[in-house]
């Protein structure tokens, strides 16, 4: 049930009551103070975005959809997954919306609700995180082999030369580096997984 103040009663000319539950939910789950409610739909974000051409909705449209409570469409959108975290939109946004961080929130919400439409990006993140949770450090070779074999085996032949170059130039370690106090990190992460960000 939505908190009372997020639901505006149906007024003249409104087909259904305005419901800001989704907007609040996203803002609350975003790391800093998102300023999401301040979006004035100017479109500076989409206009600044280097990868907007590959997005199904520009960030501006996505934020309007959040406000309209279109949960399903928002969580199925590829926009957060195409975001390259370049922060062009963030520094240009006249309303100081933490756009890139909102994208991270939407990604984690889509993962939790299993709404993403392409499994590559979440699996890549999950594989990366798995390495970090095991060794405390990232492990590029393990990540690359596991991810490519699962998701893009056809891309491998074309990349063989590059991979061989990285290995012979010793730019990829054959074995993972581990931190010493893995127990401490595990304890911290296990505890952290039981916690959620609320206001």
């Amino acid at each position, binding site marked *: 049930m939505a908190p009372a103040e997020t639901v505006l009663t149906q007024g003249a000319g409104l087909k259904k009551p305005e419901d800001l539950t989704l907007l609040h939910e996203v803002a609350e789950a975003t790391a800093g103070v998102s300023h999401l409610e301040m979006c004035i739909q100017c479109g500076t974000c989409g206009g600044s975005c280097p990868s907007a051409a590959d997005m199904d909705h520009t960030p501006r449209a996505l934020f309007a959809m959040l406000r309209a409570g279109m949960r399903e469409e928002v969580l199925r959108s590829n926009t957060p997954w195409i975001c390259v975290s370049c*922060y062009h939109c963030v520094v240009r946004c006249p309303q100081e919306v933490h756009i890139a961080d909102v994208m991270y929130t939407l990604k984690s919400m889509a993962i939790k609700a299993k709404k993403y439409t392409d499994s590559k990006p979440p699996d890549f993140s999950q594989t990366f995180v798995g390495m*970090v949770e095991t060794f405390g450090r990232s492990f590029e070779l393990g990540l690359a082999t596991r991810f490519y074999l699962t998701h893009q085996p056809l891309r491998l032949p074309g990349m063989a030369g590059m991979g061989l170059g990285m290995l012979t130039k010793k730019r990829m370690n054959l074995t993972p580096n581990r931190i010493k106090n893995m127990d401490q*990190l595990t304890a911290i992460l296990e505890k952290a997984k039981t916690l959620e960000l609320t206001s």
Partner: protein
Amino acid sequence: MNKYLFYPGCSMEGSARAYYESLKAIQPALTMELEEIEDWNCCGATEYLSINLIPAYSLIARNLALAAQQKNGTDTVMAPCSACYLNLEKADYYMAERPALGEKVNEALAAGGLHYEPGSVQIRHLVDVIINDIGLETVKSKVVRPLTGLRVAPYLGCMVPRPDFAKRWSDHEHPSELDDLMKALGAEVIDFPMKTSCCGGHMTQIGPETAYELIRRLVAAAEEQGADIMVTMCPMCQMNLDAYQGETNRHFGTNYHMPIVFFTQLMAVAFGIDPKQAGFGLELVSAKDALARIGLKAPEEQKPTPARKKPEGLPMPKPLPKKYASGQTVVEE
């Protein structure tokens, strides 16, 4: 002597080895003391944040807590990697901006006997400390082999000048710091319009076509401007533009050859350090021609070990002896 708590980041030990080696090579000349944060862990790059918020920030904050504990004549954490720099800065900033986040992260840290008070350490990037602590005059005084005639495109990437929570950079989109540093080495610096445009980040892995286009724009712009070489301060940028330039060329049918190295590598050769010791030769798009412009020879290319070649390998049919070659039946006497 300027002292820093040093957070190298995972790439420095792998794909960005050239960055680490050249940094170590120039460190004495810069009178910079680096004390590595004891048992630091991965910052989570851009991946953990999309999975689970509190663990992602707790992962970053463990490093901040360790650094704050280790404070030893300095409270500045220096990170040379852009993603690490941003993550550390972000955790520090958001933990203060959103006290609820700070509390939850500290609740998690407590499970490992740690605590971090936002603001206890300063987080700074290598370029920032070189320019603002060590100073361009010191850098100039160490140059024995000026990079005269070398046309350099300075490429900072995204995550250092943006979002720049601590307001340390001259501009979000066209900062002059890296240009100034390269000029101090005597290089001819191109006013590179795409100096903070995105390299594609992790899209080279998960959405290559998005990444190829971003890589193409950068490499094409550098080439159109007549750059001999691009310099970067970010392991991810270097990896994408260097290791994926070949794939990008194949994708578009182009033939770009734009070497990209770390700014520390050019500092090292300008300081008279041997190119090999400066990490040259580790790039996949060879910087040989660029080095030649300043009268330096690139280190010998390390060839992949050839496949095992024994004169007698697998038992394959051998050519017939001559006497059988005609195809006639030969009666053995």
